[in-house]
């Protein structure tokens, strides 16, 4: 599992980011000792650093430069300042990516996984399993008791969203929003069609009653 180091002085954002990323299978570490934060990042041996710009003691740019001098760990700068100059400066100081607050969490997760995919080859991120159903996200295949079925792009996205939130009801709007983030601007009817097709595919490999509809609320696995 990939380890993400969060450098953020706002307590609530730090805790909530921690919760969110843990839910998606990342290990999180953070530090509030901003004087020694650079040493902490290096000794934590994280796979990725999420860095805020406005920090006490040193600003994010300084920290970014210092980390870069000692390590090649990918750095994503997260900031509320959104102008060309900030972005340019971040990139010049060796940051790998730049996201502005308030970010869409799906976009943040997508950026994180894209960078991790490039830097560490981590097989465990690429499969999700729940109740014996295994989803291979890179191969776009769902597996159950040795039988497999291929999924389309939309079906894969729907199933991985539901399986990442196993046990929680996900509303239709949330699933649609998720699909929209990959440039598939589908409407309500298309989602129904996609869900039905996905169900049929699951049934074809003997997965029954896995994807449950909660009337008026959404879907749950």
């Amino acid at each position: 599992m990939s380890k993400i180091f969060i450098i953020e002085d706002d307590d609530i954002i730090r805790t909530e980011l921690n919760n969110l990323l843990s839910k998606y299978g990342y290990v999180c570490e953070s530090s509030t000792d901003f004087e020694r934060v650079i040493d902490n990042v290096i000794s934590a041996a994280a796979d990725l650093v999420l860095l805020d710009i406005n920090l006490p003691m040193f600003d994010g740019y300084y920290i970014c430069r210092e980390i870069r001098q000692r390590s090649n760990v990918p750095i994503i700068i997260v900031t509320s300042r959104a102008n060309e100059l900030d972005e340019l400066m971040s990139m010049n100081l060796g940051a790998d990516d730049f996201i502005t607050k308030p970010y869409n969490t799906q976009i943040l997760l997508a950026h994180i996984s894209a960078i991790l995919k490039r830097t560490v080859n981590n097989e465990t991120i690429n499969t999700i399993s729940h109740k014996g159903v295994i989803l291979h996200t890179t191969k776009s295949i769902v597996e159950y008791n040795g039988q497999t079925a291929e999924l389309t792009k939309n079906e894969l996205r729907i199933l991985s969203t539901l399986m990442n939130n196993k046990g929680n009801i996900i509303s239709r709007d949330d699933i649609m929003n998720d699909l929209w983030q990959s440039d598939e601007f589908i409407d309500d009817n298309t989602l129904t069609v996609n869900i039905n097709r996905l169900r049929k595919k699951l049934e074809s490999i003997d997965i029954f009653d896995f994807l449950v509809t909660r009337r008026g609320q959404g879907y749950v696995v």
Partner: protein
Amino acid sequence: MRLGSFLKNRSIFLLTQGLVLSFIIILLAVVDIGIYAIIYVSSFFIITNVVAFIFEYIRKNNFYKGVLQNLENLDKKFLLSEMVEEPNFDEGIILYQILKETNKSMNDNIAKYKISSEEYREYIETWVHEIKTPIASTLLIIENNNNEVTRNIRTEIDKLDAFVEQALFYSRSNNVEKDYAIRGVILKDLVNQTIKGNSRNLIESKVLIELQKLDYEIFTDSKWFEFIVSQIITNSIKYKKDNPKIVFHAIENDNNIVFYITDNGIGIPENELSKVFDKGFTGQNGRKYAKSTGIGLYLAQKLCHKLGLSIGITSKINEGTTIFITFPRGHHNLR
């Protein structure tokens, strides 16, 4: 300066000169000096006076004429004092000093307002950045506690964020040139990006998105352009009817690319179309929908002009509205 009024202004002086002349003539006649001497003295007196008057008239006339001509030619009238040369007669010098003095005082005043409006703009920008942190943390809390209640809160937070964004862009709109980068971008990528940014709002309002051919390279600043398109999308959602739909398409002409955003909303009455880009104009639809502020399209147009784009609108009541943005081509492609 008319010669007539010039002489009229000097009537008392002329009168006294006349009296002096008559006194001299009478005096010379009394001492019986001879008629030629009298004619000689008085004509000498008159000629010197006339020469002095002509000389004075020409000098003053040249100065005032110059001042008035400068005033007429100047685009910014307050720069007059910079254009006037210092004259060499008393009244002119006084006028010259008054001009200099008032101009300086006005410059000081303008500087004062410039500083205070700049400070206010900086404050707004800092404020926007400050408030983004609590918005971000609220959204994270919602994400981690996904349920009916938090979903409703998120809708409201999204609106809040849109308003904050508008305030930021408004305060920056006078200084676009300080923060932009014109690059070649694919129109489709920008449109996709903007739709994603407004995804919650669009999905909740059940808006159908239709993307037609948009694979054109345009030259603009992505951030400002996305903001402009966001304002238009927000309007389409605000003034929607049943089964809302937004179509994005573009047409390539010889010397420009025109990008169309068409909705099937309630439309705008024809007599209001010319005013929709005015600041604060909300019109008939605005009175029906309390949410109208009259800022969105005003800002969109202002930013378009700053980016060198033109923006236009067509609409039919009950059928929908089309906004089109024209990207000039040719000289941009030279790079």
